[in-house]
């Protein structure tokens, strides 16, 4: 340490570390440093050799430039270098360099080139010390802590080149990929195009400030997940608050320490990667739920079951994409109807899986034990359920019915489920007909306690003609409005009975749900299922039976329908229109159903005060779809397509046409107004 310049060390305070180079050089400056920093620390002592080399390069450049400026007595140039050194000191965590920068600046203002030269030589010597390794040995530099690796893409935004170089060197050395930007505009471009994980933005820049950069990054949804770390010498609480308000992730005050900076950047990277992983997982989950939901919906057949003596219709509204409700309706081989609704406790994926499982169990048991009592079936279901799912907290409530539609005798079993709604054909509640007895939910009783259900739990009742029975899940009656009013049994009964006069014999659960929604009940809070059974007695049937699927059969059936309606009091023209509908329908089946010679169709005619309802069932090909194809093909060849004409006649005459295919049978359900003839006759004739 010889011949270093004009200012020998003088009275360095004992508090300073022995290796402090500032103490070696600028004795009186140490006082200044002490005044400025509460605890003077420099990172130069602990900097990695590679980073130190970078830093030294900058110093070398500054030294060369300062020497030239002194020679040329270029005060402006000196001030530029001074400014750079001040910034570098802050960035590198070496306050002594900042102080030198300030001194140079003062000296330049006073045109004191002597002093400038002194400091320049000092810097030069300083730099030589580092690069010749005369500073503390590398092992001593290390504090025994290794600095963490940084894996990610970073952006450094600073108008000072030296700062950019220093920061990028520091960070790249730790393994990061570093992009550089000189200005706010350049930073925004790079953020949009390269999508760095973390951006370190100097606040004090000419033009667009770091605050503005932060604000814009956070406002754009494309770039908003970039973590922005504000870097600045400004340090009032308001400044820091301002940064956070704009969405900054963190805030680093200069001068800062390399370790601190790296730790904060690592923090930001870790958090960003966690958020990215979470977002991807959420997206994947959502996609998978959608697929699961579609699969589950596919398993629920919402199509009605219509027969000679019954209408069975369903509606289902799941709360999320998948649900825990299940229901099914089957026509058993002996012509009896089997139907149930069930509700698996809980929501979400697990409940949906359980409900799918339970549905399989119930279907199998029901089909294989057609004539056995319902309590036997449910004991079997319970046992199999428990075997598959051992968790006693997973159970399902259910209401199961088996009905002989011609005698209207019903067996039912209630397993912890809400009571059904039973109305007569005018919509009046029939109390006391269905007793409130039953057993506990399926899957609840521990196996060592035996079978949960006995014969005493069963319900046996003969339903009256024209009865309307609704079974449902509790999501429906527990639905609330935003004011907190609960639907309850009353709300459900009101909705059902309100629809009866309007629709005649069409009691569609789907319409009930629509009505409840329109009254403000939030059905989406839970799964809602509604199954409605309408039992037709002899007095409800105007006519019904089977007839040959031939042109003659169609003609005779249509004529018979007309005769029956006339007998019920229908006027000539209206009855004739219904005959036409029947004829056109059956001829469609005959022409396009692909039925064999001896095939028969089933028809059912019911009437209410304002309309009649005509049901046809056939076992032919899906003629509706085939028709449309043939129709559009034929229309091209010849403008007068017969097939299309028949269909358009039907649609012109009917208030409602339901077509669906279930269990390999075509069902078509027509509703025709009693006043159709009158309405048509009073239409003003077309002016040709």
């Amino acid at each position, binding site marked *: 340490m010889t011949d270093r310049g004009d200012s020998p060390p003088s009275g360095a305070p004992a508090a300073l570390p022995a290796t402090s180079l500032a103490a070696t050089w600028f004795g009186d400056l140490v006082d200044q440093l002490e005044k400025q920093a509460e605890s003077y620390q420099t990172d130069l002592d602990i900097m990695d050799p590679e980073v130190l080399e970078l830093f030294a390069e900058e110093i070398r450049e500054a030294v060369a430039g300062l020497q030239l400026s002194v020679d040329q007595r270029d005060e402006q140039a000196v001030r530029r270098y001074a400014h750079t050194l001040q910034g570098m000191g802050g960035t590198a965590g070496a306050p002594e360099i900042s102080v030198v920068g300030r001194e140079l600046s003062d000296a330049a203002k006073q045109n004191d080139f002597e002093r400038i030269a002194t400091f320049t030589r000092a810097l030069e010597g300083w730099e030589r010390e580092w690069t010749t390794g005369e500073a503390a040995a590398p092992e001593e530099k290390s504090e025994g802590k290794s600095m963490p690796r940084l894996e990610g893409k970073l952006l450094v935004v600073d108008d000072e080149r030296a700062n950019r170089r220093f920061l990028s060197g520091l960070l790249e050395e730790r393994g990061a990929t570093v992009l550089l930007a000189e200005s706010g505009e350049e930073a925004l471009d790079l953020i949009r195009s390269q999508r760095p994980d973390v951006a370190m933005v100097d606040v004090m820049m000419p033009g667009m400030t770091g605050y503005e950069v932060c604000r814009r990054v956070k406002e754009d949804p494309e770039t908003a997940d970039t973590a922005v770390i504000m870097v600045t010498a400004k340090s009032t609480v308001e400044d820091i608050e301002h940064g956070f308000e704009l969405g900054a992730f963190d805030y680093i005050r200069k001068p800062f320490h390399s370790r601190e900076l790296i730790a904060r950047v690592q923090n930001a990277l870790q958090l960003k990667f966690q958020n990215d992983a979470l977002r991807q997982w959420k997206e994947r989950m959502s996609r998978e739920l959608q697929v699961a939901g579609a699969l589950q919906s596919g398993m629920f057949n919402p199509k009605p079951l219509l027969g000679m003596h019954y209408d069975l219709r369903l509606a289902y509204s799941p709360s999320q994409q998948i649900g825990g409700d299940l229901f099914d309706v089957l026509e058993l081989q002996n012509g009896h109807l089997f139907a149930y609704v069930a509700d698996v406790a809980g929501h979400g994926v697990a409940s949906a899986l359980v409900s799918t499982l339970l549905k399989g169990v119930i279907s199998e048991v029901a089909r294989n034990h057609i004539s056995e009592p319902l309590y036997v079936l449910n004991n079997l279901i319970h046992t199999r359920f428990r075997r598959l799912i051992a968790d006693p907290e997973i159970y399902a409530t259910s209401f199961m019915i088996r009905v002989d539609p011609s005698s209207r005798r019903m067996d039912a079993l209630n397993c912890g489920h809400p009571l059904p709604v039973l109305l007569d054909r005018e919509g009046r509640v029939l109390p006391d007909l269905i007793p409130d007895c039953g057993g506990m939910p399926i899957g609840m009783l521990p196996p060592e306690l035996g079978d949960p259900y006995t014969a005493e739990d069963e319900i046996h009742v003969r339903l009256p003609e024209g009865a309307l029975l609704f079974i449902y899940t509790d999501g429906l009656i527990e639905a609330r409005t935003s004011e907190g009013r609960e639907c309850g049994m009353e709300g459900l009964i009101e909705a059902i009975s309100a629809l009866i006069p309007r629709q005649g014999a069409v009691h569609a659960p789907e319409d009930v749900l629509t009505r409840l929604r329109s009254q403000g009940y939030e059905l989406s809070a839970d799964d809602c299922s509604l199954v409605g059974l309408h039992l037709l007695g002899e007095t409800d049937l105007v006519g019904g039976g089977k007839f040959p699927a031939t042109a003659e059969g169609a003609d005779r059936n249509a*004529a018979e329908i007309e005769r029956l309606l006339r007998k019920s009091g229908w006027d000539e023209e209206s009855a*004739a*229109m219904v005959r*036409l509908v029947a004829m056109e329908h059956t001829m469609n089946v005959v022409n396009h159903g692909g039925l064999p010679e001896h095939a028969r169709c089933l028809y059912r005619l019911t009437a209410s005060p304002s309309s009649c309802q005509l049901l046809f069932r056939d076992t032919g090909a899906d003629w509706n779809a085939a028709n449309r194809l043939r129709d559009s093909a034929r229309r091209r060849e010849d403008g007068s397509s*017969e*097939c299309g004409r028949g269909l358009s*006649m039907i649609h012109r005459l009917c208030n409602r046409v339901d077509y669906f295919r279930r269990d390999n049978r075509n069902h078509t359900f027509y509703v025709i107004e009693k006043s159709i003839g009158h309405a*048509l006759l009073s239409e003003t004739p077309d002016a*040709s």
Partner: protein
Amino acid sequence: MQSEFSKKNTTGIAALSGGLNAVNVDQFRQEFKTWYENNPELKSVILDFSDVDMVDSAGLGVLIGLLKLVSERDGDLKLVGLSKRVRLVFQITRTQRIFTILDTMDEALDETE
């Protein structure tokens, strides 16, 4: 379905009874064609629907076919004696413009004179 064919000068007259529908359209079409071809002097044709209780889409189809046949000889096809219920079929299919629909046989005959 029974049809009775007659003529007045160059106008043919066919009186139908029963229904004109999918059951009998083929038979009726054949009978009509035979009669019309065997009487080449006939141009216009009057169809008497007084005794017809039903016409369906197949029936309309055959009538359109007859219309074509008759117009080949520059003749008209007139329909008379339609009951309200049968008229409605033309109304709902908007085919009443294609055919000449008149109330009585006399009207139809007057027109063709």
